[in-house]
């Protein structure tokens, strides 16, 4: 800071804080805007609603038979038996089931949209093994017809992640699954950002084939460690700058680096890790890596071998977001067991999640959870619907850092709610009505509430 501004110097000196740098005046504090693409989401107009006589799975592990859900001002007001309200519209849900809105923690909708033509391949910035500087929200096409089909399957919130080609794939974003024509209008207010990391075969294949690092799993680890070491220095530099500035020193702000901003966000605990990682030994090392550099290892996605280290995951407070039965498409997906999610879930303090990573199965995450529950129950487990629903509601919300807002039907939570024609664990189950913040966003029997993408309009 070379400019001489007398008034600033006088102020600083009068505070007695500039003693060690009398030559230079203090410049304005440089701070980084952490939210430059803010959510513009506004809940749609909601009515006062009283859903009566349903089988309610609360998302907290409870099942209430013949119960009611009262929604006021877009929030869950009450859940219980024989509720009444003077002005609320009553929906008779006798014989139907009610659950929290379904949450998918792993989607590429909008970034790999339909139609999946060349021009739409926006999910993987495959140009460097560390692209922590990209934000997948900048790829999201809100007109992806997949958002609408997912909503018809009861999906009310979802995390869009970049792909897994890179060690650091970039930031993920959590969306409310409302029809909109800007990304910001879907953005889940106050949801923390995620950072996609990837273990194993994908990064080493993509970069190894170009004869650049990483080409091996040890190269992957070296890549993460170098990046975190650099981020640690960056964090230190900014913290020193902030502290010195606070002391009134005339210090220069460190050079801004948007890649390191993201990594530092993780070290600061603002950004949550979402780690594509299949194998037990790799997940165990990723946990040590996080301890080496002082951040939380976050959620492991696709962990085909999570069942081998269920204790370790729970001890570390890591969620595991998994498929019920995908397997065999590559070596690291060879050791699948159909009970993976059930085994992970059975450990105390666990956080098991059913995810889709698919524009198809995201439409039936309820059936995906059902496959796990019933196949596990054939092999010694005794899992009930009220518990299994947590894999696609409360646990998913926890993984995304939004469990204080959604994921369960508790008083004060955002009224993201699905009414099903029957148990959602049936192959014949259909979401009949879907609400987000108390507003109806889908109705199977009313075309008015069936959104259509711009792309599909007028097609024959």
């Amino acid at each position, binding site marked *: 800071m070379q400019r001489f501004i007398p008034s600033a110097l006088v102020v600083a000196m009068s505070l007695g804080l500039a003693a060690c740098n009398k030559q230079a005046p203090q410049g304005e504090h440089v701070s980084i805007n952490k939210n430059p693409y803010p959510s513009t989401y506004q809940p749609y107009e909601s009515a006062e609603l009283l859903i009566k006589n349903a089988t309610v799975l609360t998302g907290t592990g409870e099942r209430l038979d013949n119960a009611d859900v009262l929604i006021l001002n877009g929030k869950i007001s009450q859940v219980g038996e024989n509720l009444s309200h003077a002005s609320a519209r009553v929906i008779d849900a006798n014989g139907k089931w009610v659950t929290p809105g379904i949450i998918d923690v792993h989607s590429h909708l909008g970034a790999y949209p*339909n*139609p*999946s*033509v060349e021009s739409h391949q926006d999910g993987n910035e495959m140009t460097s093994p560390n692209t922590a500087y990209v934000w997948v929200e900048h790829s999201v096409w809100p007109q992806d*017809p*997949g958002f609408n*089909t997912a909503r018809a399957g009861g999906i009310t919130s979802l995390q869009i992640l970049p792909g897994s080609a890179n060690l650091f794939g970039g930031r993920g974003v959590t969306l409310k699954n409302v029809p909109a024509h800007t990304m910001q209008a879907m953005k889940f207010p106050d949801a923390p950002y995620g950072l996609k990391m990837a273990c194993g*075969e994908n990064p080493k294949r993509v970069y190894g084939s170009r004869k650049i690092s990483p080409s091996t799993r040890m190269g992957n680890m070296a890549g993460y460690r170098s990046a975190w070491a650099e981020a640690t220095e960056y964090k230190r530099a900014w913290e020193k700058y902030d502290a010195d500035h606070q002391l009134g020193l005339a210090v220069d702000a460190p050079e801004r680096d948007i890649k390191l901003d993201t990594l530092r966000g993780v070290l600061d605990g603002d950004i949550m890790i979402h780690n594509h990682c299949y194998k037990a030994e790799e997940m165990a090392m990723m946990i040590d890596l996080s301890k080496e550099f002082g951040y939380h290892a976050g959620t492991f996605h696709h962990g085909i071998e999570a*069942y*081998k280290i269920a204790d370790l995951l729970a001890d570390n407070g890591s969620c595991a977001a998994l498929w019920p*039965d*995908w*397997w*065999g*498409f*590559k*070596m690291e*997906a*060879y*050791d*699948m*067991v*159909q*009970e993976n999610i059930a*085994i992970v879930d059975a450990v105390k303090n666990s956080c098991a999640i059913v995810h889709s990573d698919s*524009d*198809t199965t995201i*439409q*039936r995450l309820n*059936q995906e959870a*059902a*496959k796990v529950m*019933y196949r596990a129950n*054939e*092999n*010694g487990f005794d899992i009930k619907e009220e518990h299994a629903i947590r894999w696609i509601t409360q646990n998913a919300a926890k993984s995304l850092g939004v469990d204080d807002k959604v994921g369960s039907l508790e008083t004060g939570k955002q009224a993201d709610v699905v009414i099903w024609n029957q148990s959602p*664990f*049936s*192959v*014949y*189950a*259909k979401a009949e009505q879907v609400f987000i913040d108390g507003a109806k966003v889908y109705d199977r029997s009313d075309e008015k509430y069936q959104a259509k993408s711009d*792309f*599909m309009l007028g*097609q*024959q």
Partner: protein
Amino acid sequence: MKLFKKTLLAAAVLSSAGAMAKTTAIINADIHTATEQGVLKNYSLLIEDGKIAAISNLKLDADEIIDAQGKIVTPGFIGSMNQLGLVEVGAVASSRDGNEKKGGITFDPSLAFNPKSTLIAYARKGGITRDVIAPSWGESPFVGLSSTVNLSGEFGTSVVDSQNAIIVNLGGTKDGSRAASLAKFIDKLEGQQTKLEKKSDKKDDKAEPSKEEKLLTAALKGEKPIVVRVSRAQDMLELIKVKERFGIDLVLSGAEDALPIKAELAAAKVPVILSAMANLPGSFDSLNASLTTAGELEKAGVQVALTIAGDSSHNVYQLRYDAGNAVAYGMSREGALKAITSNVADIFNIEDAGSIAVGKAADLAIWSADPFEISTTLEKVMINGVAVSTESRHDKLRDRYMAESNMPRAYTK
């Protein structure tokens, strides 16, 4: 499930040794025949020499009696258009044998079928007893030949019927025009038809026809189906014209955009193999993809078979769930059952399986309840009258990691 007289193991050993003299009866069953007979409640069936010897509402006697206790018996399900036994791990090139870039019409991947693949025991968990394996791509529109295999996992006898259909890929491509691919397809048929007409004029021509010529001749006589992977409605209409011109036994696969032309498909008697789950506009060829397609085609009178979208080799066990979803969106229960049994058999000329009728192979599945429902347990699977295990490598891994042991997991086997 109560077993009398013989243990399962003994039964399996006897039959695999070829000693098929003994008979088995399944009694007290709800038999879903996948024939015009529909559901036979509280019936029994008799198995002799690996075949269904009798179906009766009387108590049948046999060396071995299986009391189904009112549970549901269906034909074993038949997967199709996948690469079961031709791929172990998708990304491991040396474990993939289903496709050949320059293969062309004569490429027959069934020579590479591995009955010991871990995918086969896994597929049996879904009640799959047979499967039609088919190449999925190649440079030419003619990508090769399909074959029927059974899921017994046995050396030597698993490939039941090789080269049972000609597989062709048409529609939008990255390079060039779809018109060129379609023309190439038509030219082949036309060329062979011309040869055959000339040949019938010259009776002295004794040159042995090539493999390709034999296949095309069989196709032109309507003896060997031609299964065309195609998505767009207009392309399917062009293919109906080809069928009418050459008299081929045309089958459409994929057919995401079939909905707007269901009447034309029905009138032309063209069977359709599709995924019940394909409802997204994956390309400009599939803008009308819908969860209701299977049911709507059925109602229009089209013969429908269901297949799995995506990785259909590793996931073929899910066929019963797909059938359930087809029912949820409008297909009849009976239609959905046929779509994974007798319709597949009919399309690929599998004469000895796909339904429960006297003379058919005893490829059977016994279910605790509705076979399409996720909560339902598969209780028993038989192939050629022999009980086969549904245990796969996946179960071994689960058991290893759930076992109580003070020793490292590697000692739990």
